[in-house]
């Protein structure tokens, strides 16, 4: 198997479902080697959206972290700049579904950082759906369908870092077994 570029799986924790109204409060990513799909590098940070204590508190509850950790976290501009700098743009982005991709693009826009990745993005849901169909799963799958199917465990559903590692593992298993 040979992918042309390394794959950058990313996952987000957000304050809601609407990329225009809601904000990214955690951005996690892992870089997979194009030849063997092993993890080469990773990125994980919480994002402070506001200086208001009440809002920091509300977001800390979503993330299940303490107030001070989030208060000391960087703002979206710094996070996106760092994310872009760390991995460059010669990678193939990958994530579970369309909504996450919209959130990432909107975050780049909010941070006034040029989004200059290739417009192709691997969407895990599509691959997972076809794969599990071949093995008789007939319902419309969700992320949890894939986690269960591959006998993986999600301990912290609120944690984007754990989720992105699970996505990468699901991807490896599909590719290995396909």
């Amino acid at each position, binding site marked *: 198997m040979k992918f042309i570029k390394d794959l950058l799986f990313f996952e987000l924790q957000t304050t809601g479902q609407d990329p225009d109204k809601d904000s990214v409060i955690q951005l996690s990513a892992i870089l997979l080697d194009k030849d063997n799909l092993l993890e080469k590098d990773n990125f994980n940070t919480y994002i402070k959206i506001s200086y208001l204590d009440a809002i920091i508190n509300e977001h800390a509850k979503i993330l299940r972290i303490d107030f001070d950790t989030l208060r000391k976290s960087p703002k979206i501009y710094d996070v996106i700049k760092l994310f872009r700098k760390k991995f460059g743009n010669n990678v193939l982005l990958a994530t579970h579904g*369309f909504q996450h991709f919209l959130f990432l693009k909107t975050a780049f826009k909010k941070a006034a950082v040029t989004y200059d990745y*290739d417009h192709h993005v691997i969407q895990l849901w599509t691959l997972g759906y076809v794969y599990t169909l*071949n093995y008789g799963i007939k319902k419309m799958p969700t992320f949890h369908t894939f986690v269960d199917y591959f006998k993986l465990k999600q301990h912290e559903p609120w944690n984007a870092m754990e989720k992105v590692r699970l996505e990468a593992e699901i991807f490896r298993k599909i590719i290995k077994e396909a």
Partner: protein
Amino acid sequence: MNFKKDILLIDTEFSGFDLQKHDLLQIAAVLLDKKTLKEKEVFSSFIKPGSWQHRNRESMAVNKISFDVVKNAPSLKQVIKTFDKTFGHNVIQAFYVGYNDKRFLMHAYKKAGVKWQFNYHYFDLWSLFYPHLALKNQLRSKKDFAGFGLEYLIKKFKIKIDKNNLHDALVDCRVEAEVLRKVLKKM
């Protein structure tokens, strides 16, 4: 192959990439049977543009849509209403590298005042084709990646088509459907 729902493969043509400035110029779709992937129903319509003067020259060079083709086409609202009624919502939407198609379509629904009632998941054909070719060791150079458009797929999967009609949205849908059938057969 037995999908839970029929697959609605959609392709659009637009006059540029900016939702605020550019127009959706064509919507085409083919409904594929969930068991056989055979074509069950088809939709294709051009749309009368609202801001033709803002069209992007590069986009227009790809879609090759002239003003004569769209000047008497139905309005965006009419097209979206008809499209929405044609297939209902109990389908899996599918696109080929669908980010722009999907956001233009969602924006068009909003502009037309029609409620978006589709499942938020959509099937991205590229996400299937790319790993498939990687697994077969058929991605040999960076050129393969950069050129991974429909022309590449037509050549790779030996699909017969009049290349003059490529990038008409309905023709593109049918090419994508044929590649999907071939890939799924091999998986």
